[in-house]
């Protein structure tokens, strides 16, 4: 009865419940960490098994459903992301979590996301999707009601869209497991290709695709459904956000892949191709591209570190969506690669933010500065993360972005390529702020006795930073696993080298060059470069006198001119649109209930009479 998949999925849940029930400081942390470590251990062990057999299977019958779980190459990668980043986040929570409530829901959400990755039927997929959504919602609810409700409503809206899509498929196919659905839809596509009647009509396909797109788009934070993300990512325990942004958003990405797996052939038949990409995929890619731009621009305009990274996270997911949308083997592998690297560096970022907030209690740029001296370890981590996100070799961020770029350009998609390029540029724009405003420059006096990261957080950051570096230097490690998905050498090369045929990247070589360069620089530095030490207060102003309203320092309104340039576009806010819809519905409900339940029994009697009249008219 007990299978390793079962353990992988439910160990965090059990640990969470146990930690919550015991609620003893010290023990609950230990239980929580163990609960997060068990799935990771089993997943690593499963690597062995998967090298000898194609998949590990588990199924359980419950409430009239047969739930199937299957571990194979694609979702092993995703589950590993969840395992590693989840473990790191839980370690971080040892320092930042305040009570057992957070342990409970953080671990439940880990269960949820693992279940989503491992589920091999739509019912299970949906259930764990809901578990994940709910648990992460509860994490946010504790901090901010408005943000959490926004998150929950959009997520559940997405989940319900998915439910309807599942129902439509179920009604036609009569089964919920992936294998059958895939097969039936494939046959359906064949049938269509031979000109016979298809099971699904064109409109139904559009509907199903649209609903799935909404469902997964919400979770991934795809434009224009991203509005929950900045608030939800920032209004919760920041250690948890490492998992939230690093792993939970990947569920949306994984969902997009599921669209390919289940509906790909059928959709391709129905809508045809656009260039090399399937048309439906191109929609995903285009939305992904927009997400990159919107997320990046908005990230640059934020004054709060948490918000900055939240938007940055949205922007990065956009890359993954572009990769998935293009739909060639290479681009999908690149997308998954970027999913891995995004999880690693964004997890790291949020742990860094968690450390900063834990130690300083501040979240805004204007209150920070000069922390590099006080928190050297954290700064080192941040350095890795920044380089990785910015896509600077030899870190993992470069490898994945490079692959993605190559994949898109190779298919002659200039628009998408432009979007990715723009995204990278804007990435520098917001990172420069983070780099300077937090770590360098003038330090406010109240931060003078800030300590460095506490041990659990340091370990957690260390794990992620290490992986960032390792996968950057040896990108072939990941590429090898990705190639197993398609069963062929999509990305060629060795462990240190990625070879696409039309371009190659050697992580080790670059590292060596970099190290050599650094050594030379150091030699030059030590041999006699004249460095003048200036006090940090020694700044100069030129031209106009500075007023507080238009005081553009790196810590304050740095990109205000950008904001002013974009003023017209910023007025279009989907967030506000959704809020207006929500308010409108609430007002409608208010008015409606006062009209309908107006208190007069005679009016109620009239309702009865009207129903009677309808019955009579129907009868006559």
């Amino acid at each position, binding site marked *: 009865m007990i299978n390793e998949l079962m353990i992988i999925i439910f160990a965090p849940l059990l640990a969470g419940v146990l930690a919550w029930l015991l609620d003893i400081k010290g023990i609950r942390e230990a239980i929580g960490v163990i609960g997060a470590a068990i799935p990771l251990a089993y997943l690593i062990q499963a690597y062995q098994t998967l090298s000898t057999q194609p998949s590990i299977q588990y199924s359980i019958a419950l409430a009239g459903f047969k739930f199937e779980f299957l571990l194979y190459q694609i979702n092993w990668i995703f589950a590993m992301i969840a395992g590693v980043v989840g473990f790191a986040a839980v370690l971080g929570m040892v320092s930042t979590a305040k009570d057992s409530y957070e342990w409970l829901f953080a671990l439940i959400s880990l269960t949820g996301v693992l279940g989503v990755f491992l589920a091999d039927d739509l019912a299970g997929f949906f259930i764990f999707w809901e578990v994940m959504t709910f648990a992460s919602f509860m994490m946010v609810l504790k901090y901010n009601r408005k943000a959490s409700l926004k998150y929950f409503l959009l997520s559940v809206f997405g989940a319900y869209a998915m439910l309807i899509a*599942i129902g439509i498929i179920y009604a036609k196919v009569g089964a919920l497991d992936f294998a059958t659905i895939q097969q039936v839809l494939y046959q359906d596509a064949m049938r269509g290709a031979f000109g016979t009647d298809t099971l699904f009509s064109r409109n139904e396909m559009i509907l199903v695709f649209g609903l799935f797109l909404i469902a997964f788009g919400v979770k991934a934070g795809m434009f224009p459904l991203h509005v929950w993300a900045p608030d939800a990512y920032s209004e919760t325990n920041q250690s948890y956000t490492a998992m939230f942004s690093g792993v939970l958003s990947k569920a949306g990405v994984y969902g997009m892949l599921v669209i390919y797996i289940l509906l790909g052939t059928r959709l391709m038949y129905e809508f045809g191709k656009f260039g090399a990409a399937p048309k439906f995929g191109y929609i995903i890619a285009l939305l992904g591209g927009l997400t990159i731009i919107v997320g990046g621009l908005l990230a640059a305009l934020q004054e709060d570190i948490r918000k900055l990274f939240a938007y940055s996270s949205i922007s990065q997911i956009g890359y993954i969506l572009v990769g998935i949308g293009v739909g060639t083997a290479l681009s999908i592998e690149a997308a998954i690669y970027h999913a891995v690297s995004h999880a690693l560096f964004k997890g790291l970022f949020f742990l860094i933010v968690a450390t900063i907030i834990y130690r300083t209690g501040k979240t805004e740029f204007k209150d920070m500065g000069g922390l590099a001296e006080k928190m050297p370890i954290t700064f080192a981590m941040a350095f890795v993360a920044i380089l990785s996100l910015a896509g600077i070799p030899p870190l993992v961020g470069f490898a994945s972005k490079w692959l993605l770029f190559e994949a898109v350009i190779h298919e002659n998609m200039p628009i998408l390529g432009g979007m990715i390029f723009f995204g990278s540029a804007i990435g520098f724009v917001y990172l420069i702020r983070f780099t300077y405003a937090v770590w360098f420059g003038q330090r406010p006096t109240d931060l003078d006795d800030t300590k460095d990261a506490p041990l659990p957080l340091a370990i957690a950051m260390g794990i992620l930073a290490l992986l960032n570096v390792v996968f950057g230097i040896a990108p072939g490690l990941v590429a090898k696993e990705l190639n197993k998905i398609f069963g062929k050498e999509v990305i060629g090369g060795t462990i240190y080298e990625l070879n696409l045929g039309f371009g190659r990247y050697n992580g080790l070589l670059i590292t060596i060059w970099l190290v050599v360069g650094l050594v030379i620089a150091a030699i030059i530095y030590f041999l006699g470069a004249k460095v003048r030490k200036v006090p940090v207060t020694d700044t100069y102003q030129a031209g106009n006198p500075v007023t507080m309203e238009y005081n553009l320092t790196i810590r304050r309104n740095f990109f205000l001119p950008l904001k002013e340039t974009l003023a017209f576009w910023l007025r279009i806010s989907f967030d506000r649109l959704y809020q207006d819809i929500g308010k409108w519905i609430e007002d409608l409900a208010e008015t409606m209930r006062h009209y309908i339940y107006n208190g007069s029994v005679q009016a109620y009697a009239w309702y009865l009479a009207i129903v009677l009249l309808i*019955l009579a008219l129907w009868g006559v």
Partner: protein
Amino acid sequence: MNPQYASLLIALPLFSAFLVPLIKRAGKKVILPYLTLVTLIQTGIAAWAFKEVYTTGKPIIVLAGGFQPPVGINLYIGHFAALFVLIIAVVSFFMTVFSMKAIDVEPIDKYAMLFLLLMLGATGMIATGDIFNLFVFMEITAISAYALTGYNKTGEASEAAMKYIILGGIGSSFFLVGVALLYGSLGTLNLAQIAMLASKMNPTVAQAALALLVFGLAVEAELFPLNAWAPDAYQASPHPVTVMFSAFVVKAGLYAMVRIVYLFKDTPAFMGILNLILILGTLTVVIGELSALRQTNVKRMLAYSSIAQIGLIAVGFGVATPQAVDAAVFHMVNHAIVKALMFLAVGYVAITLGCPCIESFKGLGKKMPLTAFAITVGAISIVGIPLFNIFWSKFRLLLAALQVGKTGIVALILGASLVEAVYYFRLIHAMWFEESKDEKVEENLAFSIIMLLLVALIIVIGVYPEPVWNLVQKAATDLYNVANYIKNVPLLGVSP
């Protein structure tokens, strides 16, 4: 044991209710413990009947007076009835315990009688196999419900009772017209025989009769727009009574409606009526949830939520595929558990802190942690989060509806569920994360145990729904499989 002893399910509450005037002489203090005792015995009998039905797999047919149906009236305690009679008895038992604290308005002896008879009425409605007897039990339920609604004797209570009486009166009158039409064209009142003969009925009469019967019962079953009395009655009646309304009184009405509708499977009017139920059910869900959205009185909010859930069940019955009926019955059971818990907890808060308004709930997590926890679990369950019981039934129900292509209806219901999530999570937020100055309150042990029991049930069913699901499937088959129903009732050969 003679299965006829199942008639004790009816006899015992009646006898005990008639005994109350004599018990009263022993002092007012005895009455509520006596009530508890009676419901406990009733639970025992119901458990016995439940065991009997589910082990033998055959329904218990109680013949009143020893006459075979359709000459005599029979009670049909099949899988569905056995399950629900047990639920009724158990919920009533819990409520008697609750009454000890919640009822402080005199005259307590009358309350005890009405309480027992309300329980009796619901039991009878679910168990009976005769349409006029159904009417009688419906009236027993309704009239005791009217009296209990007005029991607090405040202006609000009287007003709610007045609304309930007038609407219920119209409903039952038209129900009786339906019975008259039915009898006039078939010459029998036995449900099984009606089912047997229904296909031969004149379609005009069948349509009118069915429409009128559904109309009458829909008032009891709280389908919009016939449910206008319900929120008022839920709000104004004593807290234990609200629990009973939500947990089984309305379900008895819904069950009766569905039972009757399914008897007419072979008539041309059947599909029309199903569509009507479907539409009314959907409207009930949507309008119920929207109305609950900005309530400041939590009890009233729960009332609207309860109505909406009933609408969901009605949708399940309206879809009328076996899967949908399974899911609907499952939802009935789950909803009974959850709403019993919710109204119990909210009622407890109301009597401890003075009123069921939202102000009392601010910071409840500090004041009454256990109650707040119970409400939280109930709310999460109702919203339909996996690992809690309602998720399963809701999920199955919606899948069943989607399976027959009712996508629009499902979309509306899901939209309403979003609304539901909003107000429940606002409540949860208010309970746990808002501050309040009040002191911590000592929570009553008995209520805590009851609430924890229900919470445990919610979670157990949520995590491992298998046993309940099996029970429910049998119950639903009993409801849905009319041919079997006809076969199970030993009809006397009076029919030509």
